[in-house]
């Protein structure tokens, strides 16, 4: 029974990684690829760490895996935010893609 759950978690993690790479290849510009490259990563790593914890059956590993998970959870959004901010300010996107852009007027007003 435990083996089945571990197998499902491992497959889930690998599918998430593959999906992230597919998104990275297919999306048209930087800001969309940012979504594809950072979000499925979090969930896939969560599932893989759960698989490792369940398979080992050792209580000593649980705190380390928890610390690894929390560090990932805290740092991935910060990296995504920095890259998004830098990408938006340096105009690495096509303005035809954006349907509604609340930020442009604010930045133009601040710059001038």
């Amino acid at each position, binding site marked *: 029974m435990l083996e089945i759950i571990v197998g499902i978690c491992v497959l889930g993690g*690998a599918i998430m990684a593959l999906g992230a790479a597919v998104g990275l290849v297919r999306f048209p510009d930087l800001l969309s690829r940012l979504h594809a490259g950072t979000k499925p990563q979090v969930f896939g790593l969560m599932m893989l760490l759960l698989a490792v914890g369940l398979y080992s059956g050792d209580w000593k590993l649980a705190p380390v895996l928890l610390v690894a998970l929390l560090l990932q959870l805290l740092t991935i959004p910060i990296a995504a935010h920095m890259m998004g901010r830098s990408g938006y300010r340096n105009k*690495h996107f096509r303005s035809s893609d954006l349907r509604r852009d609340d930020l442009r007027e604010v930045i133009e007003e601040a710059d001038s």
Partner: protein
Amino acid sequence: MTAVLWIAGIMLVLASFGTLYRIFRGPTLLDRVLATDLLLSIFVAALCMHMIASDSYEHVLLLVAASTIGFVGSVTVARYAENTPSGEKKLRPSRLQEVNKNDPRSARRLEAVRRQAAARKRKNKGAKSTRASRRVSAGKEQ
């Protein structure tokens, strides 16, 4: 269990091919940084699967270290990212660059670059005057 690990391993290999494509192709610096971060994450996933396959949990600390280092690297590069896409060459005639005046193509290119620089200067001068006038009028209001 081994069948599951084989399938998952093949999926990770395909994912890393995808990221390598993006590192090669990505028109800006930030695309490449993002793909490198994802490659590091795939490495962490592969390490987890190796721990399951060989039933030895010695390298758990490496998970923590790898994610921290990946984060620090991508944030540092994103801080200093620049404006231009890398495939495009900007031809700026420098003083050291000699232009063959007899070659019509290079003369035309030089002419086009000079015209663009003059247009940019005119636009900056026009924008500067409105910025200055706005500041003056705002000062008068206060």
